[in-house]
């Protein structure tokens, strides 16, 4: 029996593009973040809130992935922020090549590039997009055990945002347990608790972005 030894990473093409993007972001002093969550946790609302409260001299650009519609991009564009919508037509995640092409079409200078991934905590966790940090968003209407149900997403993230905390009186969410579960897969996770309705926690989140600017 003949054997051809291959020993190649199966996602190497994605990884090569991601590494090139990361080098480019760093050389241009762009803080790139990749936001992951289930559908409906509030990723776009958080971007809207952060963009309104960030210092005006910090330039923000956004790349948004959705299975269908450019609804989210229109929300961001309405705030005067450069944005590119990637419609994946059914694909469950973004890949580095898609992000590179989207980034090429952004012409304005930017300090922060927010990549809003397709709403899904499984598939996006497998694809490096060249980001500096992954941020996982979870909301109070989701189960306390979500971080341990989707451990790879939370393990690979530097930040977790617990969103919709204004709903705490109405839902059976135990934020302490949720955070404890998240830290059981990733002890160094930085946690923010936010509400896009009341604005709670958004200043602290903006502070994190500022602190991590080059």
């Amino acid at each position: 029996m003949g054997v051809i030894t291959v020993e190649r990473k199966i996602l190497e093409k994605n990884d090569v593009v991601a590494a090139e993007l990361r080098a480019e972001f760093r050389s241009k002093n762009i803080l790139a973040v990749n936001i992951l969550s289930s559908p409906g946790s509030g990723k776009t609302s958080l971007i809207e809130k952060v963009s309104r409260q960030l210092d005006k001299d910090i330039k923000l650009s956004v790349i948004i992935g959705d299975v269908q519609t450019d609804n989210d991009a229109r929300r961001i564009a309405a705030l005067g922020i450069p944005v590119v919508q990637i419609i994946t037509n059914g694909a469950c995640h973004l890949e580095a090549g898609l992000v590179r092409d989207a980034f090429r079409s952004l012409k304005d200078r930017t300090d922060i590039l927010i990549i809003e991934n397709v709403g899904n905590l499984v598939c996006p966790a497998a694809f490096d997009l060249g980001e500096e940090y992954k941020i996982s968003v979870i909301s109070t209407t989701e189960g306390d055990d979500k971080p341990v149900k989707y451990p790879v997403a939370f393990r690979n993230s530097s930040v977790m945002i617990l969103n919709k905390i204004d709903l705490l009186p109405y839902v059976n969410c135990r934020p302490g347990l949720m955070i404890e579960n998240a830290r059981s897969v990733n002890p160094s996770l930085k946690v923010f608790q936010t509400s896009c309705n009341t604005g709670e926690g958004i200043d602290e989140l903006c502070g994190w972005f500022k602190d991590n600017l080059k």
Partner: protein
Amino acid sequence: MHEMSAALSIAEIISESVSGKELGNILSVTIDVGLLSNISAESLTFCFDSIKADKPYRSAVLLINKLPVKISCNECGGISTENDYVFRCSICSSDNISVIGGDEFTLNKITIEPQEKTSWVL
């Protein structure tokens, strides 16, 4: 179903590895899938099987080695493995650990039938 992207990448690597060579039929393709790669072996097999249906290697089998999470403890110095998403040392229970394996997703080898020679055009 990101396994379809992954299965397409496997097909691409197979093409690049065998194209233009005089080889027998491909019997199997062996890959490593670590627990932290977030790849489902079952979905990947399903996707690979549908891709190979119209390829010359339609009878090739995907052999998947599932690999555990490998942990190096920063407290006791021990190395341990976990078949679950547990990120602590199984020797001293410390969570001050480094993950040193488990995110593998690698195509290791292609096994070829020795007898008949086929000129691969992919």
